[in-house]
């Protein structure tokens, strides 16, 4: 090859094809997705909790994308919920789909584990509830004191995990984070059914229009 103009043109063309296929087309396809009726926007406390989730990198161990029954049946059986659809992420900025499941999927943790006490205690010391867990403990989201102030939330831990004569109180970050976790519920019905890629074939080649990805162009 002798010509630097051909080289750079080729480089930019390949790049442009890839941007169209993987960035622009998906954008056009999901641009018009509407939020499902059952999905509420995050409250400001939940939004703050979401920021705590991001800042502490929970998404590097927890995905938020249950797979469909036909592709990975265990997901639904574990109570992780139905396969998610684009509309479920309507309010998610940035997305937190995740790429690891060192821990369970959390898209429906608010359904599976609504208890605030459990969530706070689990964040303080996961091994108080699941002895084999390798989730880090987050003591910096809590304070250990002699006595809680009236406006503070005491965490109800199994006794062996509280230093004798002390109480564990949750910092505001921990309370917000738990509010966010409790808000993670994608158990409302969705229509049309899942636009998921489940079989070996390209999605829905012969299916009726309703089965196409929502907002398909």
């Amino acid at each position, binding site marked *: *090859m002798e010509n*630097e103009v*051909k*080289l750079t043109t*080729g*480089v*930019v*063309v*390949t*790049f442009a*094809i*890839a*941007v169209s*296929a*993987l*960035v622009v*087309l*998906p*954008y056009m*396809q*999901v*641009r018009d*997705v509407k939020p499902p009726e059952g999905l509420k926007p995050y409250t400001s406390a939940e939004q703050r909790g979401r920021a705590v989730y*991001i*800042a*502490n*990198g929970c*998404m*590097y161990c927890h*995905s938020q994308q249950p*797979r469909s029954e036909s*592709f990975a049946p265990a997901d639904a*059986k574990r109570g992780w919920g139905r*396969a*998610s*659809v684009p509309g479920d*992420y309507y309010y*998610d*900025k*940035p997305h*937190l*789909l995740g*790429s*690891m499941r060192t821990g369970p999927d959390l898209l429906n943790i608010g359904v599976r584990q609504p208890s605030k006490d459990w969530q706070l205690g689990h964040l303080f010391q996961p091994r108080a509830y699941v002895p*084999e*867990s*390798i*989730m*880090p*403990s*987050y003591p910096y989201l809590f304070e250990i004191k002699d006595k809680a102030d009236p406006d503070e939330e005491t965490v109800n831990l199994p006794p062996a995990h509280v230093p004798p004569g002390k109480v564990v109180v949750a910092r505001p970050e921990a309370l917000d984070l738990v509010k966010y976790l409790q808000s993670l519920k994608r158990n409302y019905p969705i229509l049309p059914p899942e*636009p*998921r*890629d489940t079989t*070996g074939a*390209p*999605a*829905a080649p012969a299916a009726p229009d309703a089965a196409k*990805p929502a907002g*398909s162009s």
Partner: protein
Amino acid sequence: MDSALLSLLGAFLLSMIGLFAFIWSLRKGLLVENPRAASVIFAKGEIGRVDDPALQGSDHAKLQAAAHEAGDSTDGADAAEIADRVAADRSSAFPVFMFIAFACMWLLFGGIAGLVSSLKLHWPDWLVSEAWMTFGRLRTVHLTAVLYGWITNAELGIIIWLMPRLLRTPLVGTMWLMLGGALVNIAIASGIGAIGAGWTDGLEYLEMPWPIGIFFAAGMVCIIGPVLYTLVNRKTESLYVTTWYHTAGLLWITLLFIVGKMPGVHFGVQQAAMNWWYGHNVLGLWFTPVAVGAIYYFLPKIIARPIRSYNLSLLGFWTLAFFYAQVGGHHLVGGPVPGWLITLSIVQSMMMIVPVIAFSINMGLTLRGRMRLGLYSPTLRFVMFGGIMYLLSSLQGSFEALRSVQQVAHFTHFTVAHAHLGAYGFVTMVLFGAIYFMMPRILHFEWPYPKLISVHFWLASIGILIYFVFLSYGGWLQGLAMLDPARPFIDSVVVTMPWLQWRSVGGALMVASHVVFVLHFLAMVLRLGPNRVGAALFADQGKALGVAHGE
């Protein structure tokens, strides 16, 4: 027909047509081999003369003897061409040194952060008292430090060193390069600080907050300018393979970073698609092409034989360009994204076998009969190891992209093992080899303790093999446990425990190898150790400087 399916077919056909159009337009002598173009890395009369600056005089002579073949030219290399090379090397020495020095610092730092993250996965209550120490942050610090700090700096150094050499012209715009390097490293350092403090954009591989990203993008623009300007002012007629890969890589990473970091454009599922488009393209359009380009230079140069087939490398380049850019969707198999996007990515992942095989055949043929030179040259050993791992990691990747394999492997440590086979076994090992070759030419000083190069090689290669083999196995068990509804989730955690511990063992060896490498580098920079100026030793007729530059 379904419109989504149509767009899928469209993108695929477009890449195929584009690919053939490009190869056709460059067809000049496509079926006739082009040995002249393949030999531009040698000065006239230089083929047959091995070159490994990391070796001392007597070891270099052994390497030369082992490589000798009947019919090799014995006249000296063309003096004018060597003079060009000396001038080229001199013009780039300072900026290249800066990039490599930064790279070494980040390597040491990032490797330690990786090891601590790895230990935390089996000692979950270790170092938890402060927010910056938590796994989620430290792991991301590791990633940013090794991907942007180490690989990116080292690759920039290699590009800037090889461009003038291959174009036989001095580098222009050194000040811009220094400015660019400073901006890039300021961005990396502040990005790492921000992540430690909990300020992150939250997208994997794009964590660096976007206001800091502006510095990174500006730095890359400052670097591209002088490189392209040098390209336009070249003295050679044809562009060598390495130059294609390096020019392309630089343009790609800059465009990628700008599209990926664009604030306020991406959202929801589309953002996830963009995220992984970026994620695999950083690997496929930046780390891989620059490392492959480096192999295309250093491997033939050390063994003193031009690459076997220039045309095969052309095919390899354009297939990589057309297929690799579209594989990002394979990170979302089973996810809530349009099905056609994933299918497209899986198809292109399989198509990636073409460039990988083209590269491997070419290198295999070039090396034929000279593989044993690896016994004499540790630099060659690093580069060959990297080349083989490129083949293995990419083949693994192509099959890993299939739905049936992703069903098990996705979301598990199996992916992490593959990630290190590629980013460490392949890219990092090639970078090590390249640095061993370049530094004596940059500093005019030999590596003070050549034995340490072998120590480094064995620690790093045994370390990565332990890391890869054990973690892949553990990751696969994890995936099977997770897929089985009859087993509780915690089983998938418990089965990985021994393998996570083995990963720490492998990782500790790798970090130890980094310590050896960086100390050796420091000793060289500070001119410690036996005082040997590289040039003096294998000079025969007082052409000291010329010899130092690779005759």
